[in-house]
């Protein structure tokens, strides 16, 4: 068993059938799911290495079950996540309500988790503007308010998909430096009685 080394955990959140799985599938396998695919094992977890500057960051992307019956368990999923891509369907206003719910949850429980709002199925809007149910500027305002990034993507055409994950990786990479330094500072003070301080003077 040689599991790939993963730097950051990224969870996909959002109402059922907003297109979470499709987004991951498009990003990782560069394809859009219509009709059956053979010879591929599921897309529930994928590790994907990205270049950020001269460094390589490996994201572990966690797809989640969207059905409401598992909602109570969602906290277990995003525990320890460094980024959450909260998806909503641009053609379904109720899905954006759910997105707000996830955001609140994350703010309460995972302060180190960065939030990325992602409106999906933008190709449908481009084909017919009247099907849009979630206004771009409303979401932008909300994003600014909570300090989140905001994207509109299409898994069908691939529009903006790479950008979302690239941004996640970049933020992680710059944040990781800060985070590590911060941890170090705390470390020296707190871990006085840790094993190493006691036993490592040789």
């Amino acid at each position, binding site marked *: 068993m040689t599991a790939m080394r993963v730097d950051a955990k990224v969870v996909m959140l959002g109402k059922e059938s907003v297109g979470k799985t499709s987004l991951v599938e498009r990003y990782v396998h560069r394809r859009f799911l219509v009709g059956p695919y053979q010879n*591929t094992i599921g897309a529930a977890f994928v590790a994907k290495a990205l270049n950020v500057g001269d460094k390589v960051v490996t994201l572990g992307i966690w797809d989640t079950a969207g059905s409401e019956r598992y909602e109570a368990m969602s906290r277990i*999923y995003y525990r320890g996540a460094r980024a959450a891509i909260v998806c909503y369907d641009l053609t379904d206003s109720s899905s954006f309500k759910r997105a707000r719910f996830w955001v609140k949850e994350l703010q309460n429980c995972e302060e180190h988790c960065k939030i990325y709002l992602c409106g999906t199925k933008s190709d449908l809007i481009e084909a017919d503007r009247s099907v849009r149910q979630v206004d771009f500027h409303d979401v932008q305002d909300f994003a600014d308010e909570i300090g989140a990034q905001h994207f509109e993507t299409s898994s069908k055409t691939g529009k903006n998909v790479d950008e979302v994950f690239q941004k996640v990786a970049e933020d992680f990479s710059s944040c990781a430096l800060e985070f590590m330094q911060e941890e170090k500072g705390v470390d020296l003070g707190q871990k006085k009685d840790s094993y190493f301080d006691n036993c490592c003077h040789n």
Partner: protein
Amino acid sequence: MSQRSERRGIHVDQSELLCKKGCGYYGNAAWQGLCSKCWREEYQKARQRQIQEDWALAEKLQREEEAAYVSSHSSSQTQPPQSHSQPSLATFSKFEEKKTNEKTRKVTTVKKFFSPSSRTAPKKVPPEKESEKREKEKEEKLQGRRESHGETLLRDLKGIFTQPWDMGSPTEESHEGKTPSPSITRQSSIETDRVSRDFLEFLKTLQKPGREIHKQSRAFIESMGNKKDLSAEELSECVQDFYQGMSDRLLNHFKGSSEKVDRVMDQVEKYIMTRLYKSVFCPETSDDEKKDLATQRRIRALHWVTIQMLCVPVDEEIPEVSDSVVKAITDIIEMDSKRVPRDKLAFITSCSKHIFNAIRVTKNEPASADDFLPTLIYIVLKANPPRLQSNIQYITRFCNPSRLMTGEDGYYFTNLCCAVAFIEKLDAHSLNLSPEDFERYMSGQASPRRQDDPAAWLQSGSRVNPALSQIHHNLSVLSNLEKRQQQVMEGAQSLQTELAEWQDSVAREVQEILERYPLEIKSRASAIDAENVENDRLPPPLQPQVFAG
């Protein structure tokens, strides 16, 4: 086994029953053919021998370790000769471990005994033990050698609860039979020794850091020996602090690449947790065991949950799918047998891969998270894995967190946690049932499959659960018996009426004949003279008399 019981039923040679030591008492197969007294002596001797061997082995290992380091660092430092002046660390911790082994093993075997997932092995054993025991008791009474009831009971319980089924692989089991043998503990200490050797071998490739890693790991294990009273969370913190400190030091002080540090940390985890396992798995200070039992009961109570209720996208009619399902179930049960958190994780991952395969074959397209979680829930319900909560807690507490939190193993592990949480909270709503139905199914008043027609119910039942299918089988046998009984009753009744009729008809016939031929006693013409026996007493016949006159 079957052979023996067969023989017992038919014929027993007296000499076979006697104690192999030739002390004249009767022996018992469960005690390798010895009588209870000789067996106890043998057992003690073997244990004593084994403890000595272990000490010797530990000391030898210790010397080897030291020699290895002295030879690779002979120039660097002066090395105080340790092996004799002070009791070595390895020896000490081994001794400690052994003591706790004894203690925890009893608990876990008892637990195992009650867990349904160990049904295959232990279930068969106790009844047989029972019969053997009764046999034995009879023999003893014959011998006139009596033990108090309490004493026998205690001994029998020991016999039952020290079965090797929780430690050994199937092959070992068949080797050792049902004998509670010293080689059980032996087995685990051999494993510990092997892991220690592997660890040493691995560290030798690392030169100087290797020596320090070894020293600190051992010192850490020893320090943990004094912390038995800590809560599980505190124990976890100690171990996590150790991991953290060690990997920081490897990264910063020895400037290892992060891949290399990961590799080293995997080995450190393996070494440390193999040794600490017995004292920190399901520790007495936690309520893990209680939770294990609660979960187990809960899963058993949910036996009626169907694939359809959970929306599980697998079709077990397809051979490859049912094959994967069986493998997934086996893996999740196997997880309990591993000591190292990462090894346990590997089994969860392997289980998950089989699940993905089952879904992919059924749906003919890749599985997503929406398919995976319900299927995992279904597998957990079917497997009812032993000590599930203890295992989850143990992994959470003692696994190297970098693996657990982000990687693929972590993903599957998190899903398993979700599955367990779902099972705990599961209600009518989460299965799309009405609260009334849910209650009735939970209380066993109704079974969801009953509503279908009985034939289909029978068929699906046999697929769903072997116990259910057994019940169905028994039911049909019973109803068959009932039918036959009825036939017998009817037959008996008709026989009775027939008999009564026959009696009547015979009577009638007799009557008829009687009537037709009434009894007439004809007077027979008989020769009176011949019959006249008293003729002579008759007065003589009148004789003609001559009168002169």
